[in-house]
Every structure is written in C-alpha cells, then in structure tokens.
C-alpha cells in the first residue's frame, strides 16, 4: 500500500489506463465470442464489467487528482520564481554589505592613522605663540618675502641667506658645513642686523636630533651663537658658495 502511495500520479494513470484498455478489450471479445458461439457466460462478463466500471471510476478520480496537481504545480512555479527573486535581492544586499564593509574598514584604518598622528602631535606639542614668534622673526629679516619697496641694489635681501639655507633641513641633509658663514654677503643679513637673533633661539620643532644626527661630530648646531667671522679659514669658500647659492636662487627665480 505504501509502495502505491509512493508511485507518481502519472504512473498510476498509465497503469489504470492500461487496465481499462485490457478490460474493455476482454469484455468486447467475450461478448463477441458469446454471441458467435451463442454461449452465455453470465458470471464472468459481469465480473469484468464491474472491474471495468471500478477502474473507470478510479481513472476519473486520478484525472481529477492530476488536475489538482497541475494547479499545485502552477503555484509551485510561482513560488520558485519568488524564491529566485528573493535570492537575487539577497545577493544584491550581500554585495552592498561587502561594499559597506570595505568602506568602513578603510574609514577605521584612516581614523586609526589620524588618532596616531593626533597622539604624536600631543606628545610633541608646540604652542602657537612660539610659532607666531618664529614667523615674525624670519619675516622681519626679509628672509621669506622681499620688502614692498625693494629694488635691485637694495641691501635688504628678498631671499634666504646662505647661512639660513645651511641651517635648514635641506642644508643638514646635504651635510654642508655651517661654521663661520656669517658675513658672507656684504650688507644683507648683517645690514638688517637681525641674523644672529633669528638663529639664536632654539624652537621645539627645530629638532636637535636631526642636526645632531645629520651633522658631523665636529660641526656644532649652535652656529647662531658664534660671532661673525669666527672661522676665517672657510670664509673665502663660503663667500664663493654663497655667491653660488645666490646665483642659483636667482636662476630659480
């Protein structure tokens, strides 16, 4: 009985249809035979007829079941389409989530980097007042900008002096000697009378590590404290170099 329940409706329909075909043929043959032989066999043909009617009813019931299954099949197809649609929606959402994850990961990384730099800045904090003071100092000697009324021949310089170039990071990187370079240009920084003042104070961002690390041991980084003309031996070289640097800065202009 369980095996019958497991069989598909199609198989059962074919089976019942085969039975119907066989039974109807048998019945007709039997009737034809009985008519030709004039031998009535009342019991057997009635039995076959009953079986035929029973199978016919079964066939009709199964056809009805098959129609219902057809409707259910339609519903299932609709549901399958729905499932496919939901699947594509979920895949799209998954894609968006991946993108969001990527964006968030980048943002978190950048935020961490920012926090690191904030922390670093806090550790080596510099007061804005000092920066402004320094800015005043370097601009007062016309090291960053020429005076408004500057004309060629004006002793006030519109460019950094050789000494200032040497004291900067670039100068340190090039490992240039900084000793005794004052007074190399007649009447520029000295004429302004502020050069030693500019370089004298030590600011926190003027990393002593750099100058110490980059300069050879015999070079001191407190060149600003040395009196002008301290190293007479190098004076001529410096003169030549400052001329070079001034000419190069002119070239660059």
């Amino acid at each position, binding site marked *: 009985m369980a095996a019958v329940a497991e069989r598909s409706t199609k198989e059962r329909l074919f089976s019942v249809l085969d039975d*119907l075909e066989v039974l109807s043929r048998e019945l007709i043959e039997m*009737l034809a035979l009985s008519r030709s032989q004039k031998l009535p066999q009342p019991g057997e043909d009635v039995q076959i007829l009953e079986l035929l009617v029973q199978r016919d009813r079964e*066939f009709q019931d199964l*056809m*009805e079941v098959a129609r219902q*299954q*057809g409707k259910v099949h339609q519903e*299932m197809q609709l549901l399958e389409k729905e499932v496919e649609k939901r699947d594509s929606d*979920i895949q799209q*959402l998954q894609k968006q989530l991946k993108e969001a994850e990527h964006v968030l990961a980048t943002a978190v990384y950048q935020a961490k980097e920012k926090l690191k730099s904030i922390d670093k800045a806090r550790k080596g904090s510099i007061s804005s007042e000092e920066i402004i003071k320094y800015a005043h100092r370097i601009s007062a000697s016309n090291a960053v900008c020429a005076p408004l009324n500057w004309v060629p021949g004006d002793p006030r310089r519109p460019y950094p002096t050789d000494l200032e170039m040497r004291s900067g990071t670039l100068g340190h990187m090039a490992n240039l000697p900084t000793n005794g370079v004052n007074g190399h240009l007649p009447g520029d920084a000295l004429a302004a009378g502020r050069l030693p003042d500019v370089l004298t104070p030590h600011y926190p961002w003027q990393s002593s590590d750099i100058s110490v690390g980059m300069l050879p041991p015999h070079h001191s980084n407190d060149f600003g404290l040395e009196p002008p003309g301290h190293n007479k031996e190098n004076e001529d070289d410096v003169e030549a170099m400052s001329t070079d640097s001034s000419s190069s800065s002119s070239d660059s202009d």
Partner: protein
Amino acid sequence: MTPSCDVKYMRLKAAMAVVQQKLEKEREECSLLPLVHDIIKCMDKDSQDVHQELAKLKTKIQEAREQIANMPGIDSSPVDQQQQLATLREQVRTKNQLLQKYKSLCMFDAPKAS
C-alpha cells in the same frame, strides 16, 4: 436576508451549479464507459458501426495517454508534491524574513522586495 443578498446568493448558487456541471462534464470526458456502452449496443444490433466505435475507443485511449504524458506536475505523488510545496513556501518565508531583517538593520539603500 435583504433582496440584494438574496440576489447575490442566487447568483452564487448558479455559478456553483455551472462549476459542478463543468466538473461532471470533465469527468465524463475522461470516462471510457460511454464508448464501451456504444460498442456493446452496436454489437447487440449487429450494426456495422461497431468497427467505427472500436476505432473511437482506441483513439480515445491514445488521446488519454498523450494527455497524461503532457500533464504538468504529475511526476510525483500528491503527498510528495505537497511536501515540495511546503518546502518552497518555507523558503519564501525564510528569505522574506531575512530581507526584512536586513532592511530594518542597514542604513544604506536596500532593494525593494516586492
């Protein structure tokens, strides 16, 4: 019962009768007994139409076979089919819930589940 309700009831009854008739007709269309009956009648009358009626029966059986072969959704038993249907419904329900959950969670544009 108001007259309008009465009219509605009568219409419904008529519609149901039509459906019933249609179903009966369909059942009759499936049945082979009328054809077998016609054959037996012809045999009783010794009519020459018996061969024609036999051919009709044969054709009817053949048509029924073709119809069965082309019927959709009968490759499984009704019980199995109901199970498949339940599984599909469950899938749709689960996926709907999942989408609903995502939609309530996320802050970005989610596709509209229609």
